């Protein structure tokens, strides 16, 4: 993916850029809102990562100007402001995701990759079926099968699996799951997500040879056929 990172903290940006590059992405970096807007206008990117507080032109304005110009590149806001109102204003300005500082770089990586996937998936109409290996999930009949065998899931487990499969082969962090499956933006401290995952795993992996739902140490989870 080609990623434009607009962030005035040079050190934090260099660190994030390094990790994103290690993960195989191309990263351009702008230090202020003006040059960020110019680079976004001039270049072709697959995702923007924009800090909300920028010199010269703030992050919200950068993105809303790009959106006015018809640019639909997915964008993630970075911000030290994490409360509900800030999140809402970020999304209203056309942001697709919102990450509160300080953040773990794995979290940023996982979210940026999720954004890229969303964009790649968008044009092919509405997906109603997901498949990873021999695991199938059908959104219309709301059924899950593995190796042709039907697996019964609770509604929440179904949504959890749906989110994981929508982002198959990508790392999905606990916060992403909490935000997208439960719609909470706080950290419940207890390992509640881990327990939900292990329940789901016991249903979809336990009786099968090849585990699909894997834990990525220090980052989160991924559902993938690869080892």
């Amino acid at each position, binding site marked *: 993916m080609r990623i434009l990172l607009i962030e005035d903290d040079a050190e934090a940006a260099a660190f994030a850029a390094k990790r994103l590059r290690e993960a195989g992405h191309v990263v351009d970096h702008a230090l202020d809102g003006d040059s960020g807007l110019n680079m976004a206008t001039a270049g072709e990117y697959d995702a923007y990562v924009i800090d909300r507080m920028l010199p010269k032109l703030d992050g919200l304005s950068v993105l809303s100007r790009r959106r006015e110009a018809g640019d639909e590149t997915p964008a993630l806001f970075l911000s030290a402001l994490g409360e509900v109102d800030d999140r809402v204003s970020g999304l209203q300005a056309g942001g697709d995701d919102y990450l509160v500082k300080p953040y773990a770089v794995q979290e940023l990586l996982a979210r940026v990759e999720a954004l890229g996937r969303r964009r790649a998936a968008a044009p092919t109409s509405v997906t109603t079926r997901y498949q990873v290996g021999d695991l199938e999930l059908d959104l219309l009949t709301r059924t899950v099968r593995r190796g042709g065998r039907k697996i019964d899931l609770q509604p929440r487990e179904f949504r959890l699996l749906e989110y994981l499969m929508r982002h198959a082969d990508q790392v999905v962090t606990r916060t992403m799951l909490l935000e997208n499956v439960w719609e909470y933006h*706080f950290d419940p*401290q*207890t390992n509640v997500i881990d327990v939900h995952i292990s329940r789901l795993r016991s249903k979809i992996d336990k009786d099968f040879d090849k585990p699909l739902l894997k834990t990525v140490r220090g980052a989160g989870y991924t559902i993938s056929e690869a080892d």
Partner: protein
Amino acid sequence: MPRLFRTTSFRFTLIYVLLFIGAVGVLGAVVYRVTFGAAERQTDITINNEITVLADLFVANGPGMLTRVIRQRTAWRDDSIYMLIGAPSGAVLAGNLTALPPEALEAEGDFFDFEFERPILDAAGRELGVEKRKARGKVTRFRAAPDAGQSYLVVVARDIGTREFLRDRLASAYFRIIFATVALGVVIGLLFSRALLRRVEAVNKTARAIRAGDLTQRIPRTQADDELDHLSANLNSMLDQIERLMTGMRDVSDNIAHDLRSPLTRIRNRLTDALKADAAGKEAALAATLEETERMLATFNALLSIARIQSGEGAGAMAPIDLVAIAEEMAELFEPAAQDAGFALTLITAPTPLIKGSRELVSQAVANFLDNALKYAAGGSRIELKVEPGQGGGGRISVADDGPGVPESDQDRIFERFVRLESSRSNPGSGLGLSLVAAIARAHGAELRLEDGLPHRAQREGGRGLRIALAFPAPEFD
């Protein structure tokens, strides 16, 4: 301009006075028209009529008759004034005027005002002196035939002295009243302004004191309970809020200083050692440092959240929310974790009215309760999440466990920041969870209560469990 004159109340008084003068002016004009104006017109009509009568008399009976009639009328001694002069001889034939007033010649054929001298008589008819009187009249030339050489000048007038006197008196009274009104208005305006200025000055004084750094100053209230008092009350509550925020900010920075200094010191020491250590030691130091910074970030985030919630900023939009729905969601989220930790999590709900709040924050508080129960209800086996209608129309959400509970002596302290009871030091946590909950409770106007929890199966010594509850007030939806 002095300050007193520039006040709003003075300007209002001035405008009021001007409007009053305008109204009095219009009133005066109307009164004048219907009284003195009418009387003047009446005088003119009477004089005209009389001239017509005298002219008829002259035409019918000749100058001799005219002279007699005028002499007769003059003898009545009322306010009528006549003069009959023969022309061209200029002889005064009759009348009570001693000389033809000069105005009469200028106003040939028209009404004219003049002054004449009238003898002052006592009761016996003796002359005491003369007085100058005002009069109004008209002079007309009578001629027997258009080409007759002989003609007569007839002056018919009325003494209007008394009326003029009354009018002058009235006018002067009128202008004195207006003057008094203006003077009074200005004085009252100044008094009002001074009273108002004094009260505004009290506000200014408070503002100056606060600007100088004394945040405890408040605007004094008066007994009046008027709009200025309401303004003061509003400003005072604003100041309360600002003071609370400032105190909150200070607390946050104190806490940050307190809680971040020691880990930072540890990190520095560890890194200093690591510089001299071997490869394995360096790696261990780095790992420990990473872990320490993760904890610091978590602490920092929690402190910021508390500060923002306390400022009322992080609450988001307060909307009608359903405690039962929140409880159901949280029970669903925590149930597997509770089961893993060996607890049976039960959800008890009764129909409860909606409350006004933030779903995110209330959920966060409940998550905190559940998290605490899982961490601290050691030896327990049951957790109960309960929603019930509160007293007075609100709602109440509580989490109870059958663990060891919290000793009475520690109950107030557990809501303070960084307080971790001795018994729980070994558990992970920042010590900020309940102060976050306390901030959420304050943002919702809710009461945070500690009660006895569920009885332990074995009724252990001292084990009375803990119920922690958030009681929300009845909502005021606007």
